[in-house]
């Protein structure tokens, strides 16, 4: 009898405790117990003999009972990627975080996550948690091939594959799966990967025009004039090849480039060279002609191409003194 009584008491205490725990804190998934409410004692019904004619009551709009937020029932070690599997806007009842966002008057706390438009407006990355990414990577691993040997570093594969091709794919849920943007092909490569002589480089840069970026040294061709990607890719490669080979062709009219057409001062084709030669070969016989030293030529070119400054003019002076053999 006594043992029965104590058992009853214990079970009643446990059930009240469990209910309290259930409402206040979340447990690990294996600890969660199914709490079965015990049957209440049946109430003694009252027999009412007098039927009271009830007034026709006004119909009240019945609100559906709001379910408690799902977060209350979430285990702390649940699989989050199952809860939030893809990109979607914020939902307060699904995110077990005490987030607050938004503007209030000074001193007050920011609005909570419930019915908070500020949180819904901003994009979130709740579907891209590190475990989710890891999980997805694991899933697609079986489609991957091993990385080729000998291309371990970026420098190595840049050297082997100097040409970079960029295209875009588009995913649609439409009757057509075509997207006109998908035909665009962009190829880039470093100009230093091509081999030129001085004339060819100059001509090539003129041919490609603004497709070459002087700051990064990158050459970019974007083709979109053909209907398919394959055609555009072929066309881009054709452009590159044609420009490269055309730049090595010297047309007959290129010889008529005058001094005014030069984009840079060149010592070789200017009066400076003739003067320097005349001074160096003053009274010299025809055989023992001396050409001006390269240091002098460089200093003149630097003075004119870079513009005058104290450094350039000092260098020029030094070279002239050397050229004219004036003892300092």
């Amino acid at each position: 009898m006594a043992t029965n009584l104590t058992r009853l008491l214990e079970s009643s205490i446990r059930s009240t405790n469990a209910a309290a725990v259930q409402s206040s804190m979340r447990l690990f998934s294996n600890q969660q117990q199914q709490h079965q409410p015990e049957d209440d004692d049946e109430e003694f019904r009252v027999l009412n003999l007098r039927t009271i004619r009830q007034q026709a009551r006004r119909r009240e709009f019945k609100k559906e009972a709001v379910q408690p937020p799902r977060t209350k029932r979430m285990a702390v070690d649940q699989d989050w990627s199952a809860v939030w599997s893809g990109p979607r806007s914020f939902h307060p009842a699904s995110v077990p975080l005490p987030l607050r966002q938004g503007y209030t008057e000074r001193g007050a706390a920011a609005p909570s996550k419930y019915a908070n438009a500020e949180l819904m407006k901003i994009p979130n990355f709740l579907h891209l948690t590190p475990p989710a990414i890891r999980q997805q990577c694991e899933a697609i691993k079986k489609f991957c091939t091993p990385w080729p040997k000998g291309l371990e570093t970026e420098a190595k594969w840049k050297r082997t594959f100097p040409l970079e091709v960029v295209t875009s794919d588009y995913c649609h849920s439409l009757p057509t799966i075509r997207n006109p943007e998908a035909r665009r092909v962009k190829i880039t490569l470093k100009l230093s990967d091509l081999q030129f002589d001085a004339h060819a480089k100059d001509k090539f840069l003129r041919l490609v025009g603004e497709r070459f970026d002087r700051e990064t040294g990158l050459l970019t061709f974007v083709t979109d004039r053909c209907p398919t990607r394959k055609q555009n890719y072929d066309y881009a490669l054709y452009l590159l090849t044609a420009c490269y080979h055309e730049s090595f062709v010297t047309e007959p009219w290129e010889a008529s480039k005058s001094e005014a057409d030069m984009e840079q001062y060149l010592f070789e084709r200017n009066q400076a060279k003739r003067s320097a030669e005349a001074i160096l070969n003053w009274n010299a016989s025809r055989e023992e002609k001396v050409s001006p030293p390269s240091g002098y030529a460089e200093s003149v070119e630097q003075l004119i191409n870079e513009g005058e400054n104290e450094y350039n003019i000092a260098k020029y002076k030094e070279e002239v003194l050397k050229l004219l053999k004036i003892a300092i």
Partner: protein
Amino acid sequence: MKMFRKQFVHLSRVSTHLQRNAIAPCIASPAAEMSTNVAPAAADTSSAATNEFRTGVTNPGEHSELHVAKFYTIPVEEKKQIFSGGGLPKQYEQQIKTFTEACLMVRSPALELLQYIKNADLTNPAVRYVLYGDNGVGKTLTMAHVLHYGALNEFLLVHVPWAPNWMKRPKEAANSASQEGFIDLPFDAAAWLVHFKTQNAKLLGKLQLKTSKEYVWSKRESTPAGAPLMELVEHGIARIKYASETTAALLAELKQLASARQCKIMVAIDGFNAFFHPITRIFSDNKQRVTPERITLTQPFLDITNYDWTNGVCVLSVDKIAMTEGYMASYMPRYLLGKDGFEHLDPFVPVHVGNYTDKEFLSYINYYLDRHWISRAQPGFEEQLKFMSNMNPYTLMQLVRGL
């Protein structure tokens, strides 16, 4: 000592000059004339050598690093010979008059130039030195120092005190008779011939230079081959109409003579970049501004600054003020000379003239104090002057000038 005797020969003329300045006691000894004790203010200074900012060495050829930032006096006779036709800035000329002595500070650009000139091999083509620097740093005075050296060392001086004068304010412009479409500047050419004559009369008399060919000026006038060069100069001065042609002939003759080792020539042209300015202020017959190359004087002076002759040295200066509005952005030689001017002079030796160093600045202040030009100065006034003038020579002179 030879120079000293030369001084003594001219003592009589100098003494009259000094008496005019009421400083008769100083001529008692000839040494006083050599030193700087000319002004009454300097009467208490015992001798030039004792002053730390003066030097008694009046021959620029003997100046060295020891004399940097020290003042030397150009003897009156020599000053009259070299600079009477110009060559010193006007305000410096006034200061010389006030201080009754022609003092020049020995500065490093001039020393550097003198060093080059002394070491240069004159059998090589003429070397062109180009002085450049900001406004008022002393390019003209550096050139004056070098000119003094040239005059003392038997260089024939071909000196243009300020070339832009010809392009900016000529006395008269006439159409050239000999060259179609060219402009003569007869008065300016004659004035230059006079300047050439005063500078070189003594040396020309000594060297006995002769013309190489006959110059026919008109039906009746001609200069025969083998005539003394002085005759050519005199002709240009007497017959102003032919002054420009005479100048051209004279410069061509000088170039030939120098190349034939009969004389050595120092060409000094201040404001040389004026020859390459795009435009002048001279109007042609059809009321259009002419370019400098249409002036008959330009070509001879460009020829003599070319490298195709020997036994010569060219000291040229490029100046912002020689240009006009819109061409004065920088004082660098390539900018001021332009493309043509640079190609004409290249390869030249650029010599930068800068502001005073601390030592030079203090030396100048001491000089002003010595001349009693600065008096009743508060302590620390040097710092103020240094700050206000930024150690620029011209600005300093303007700051301490009389009202």
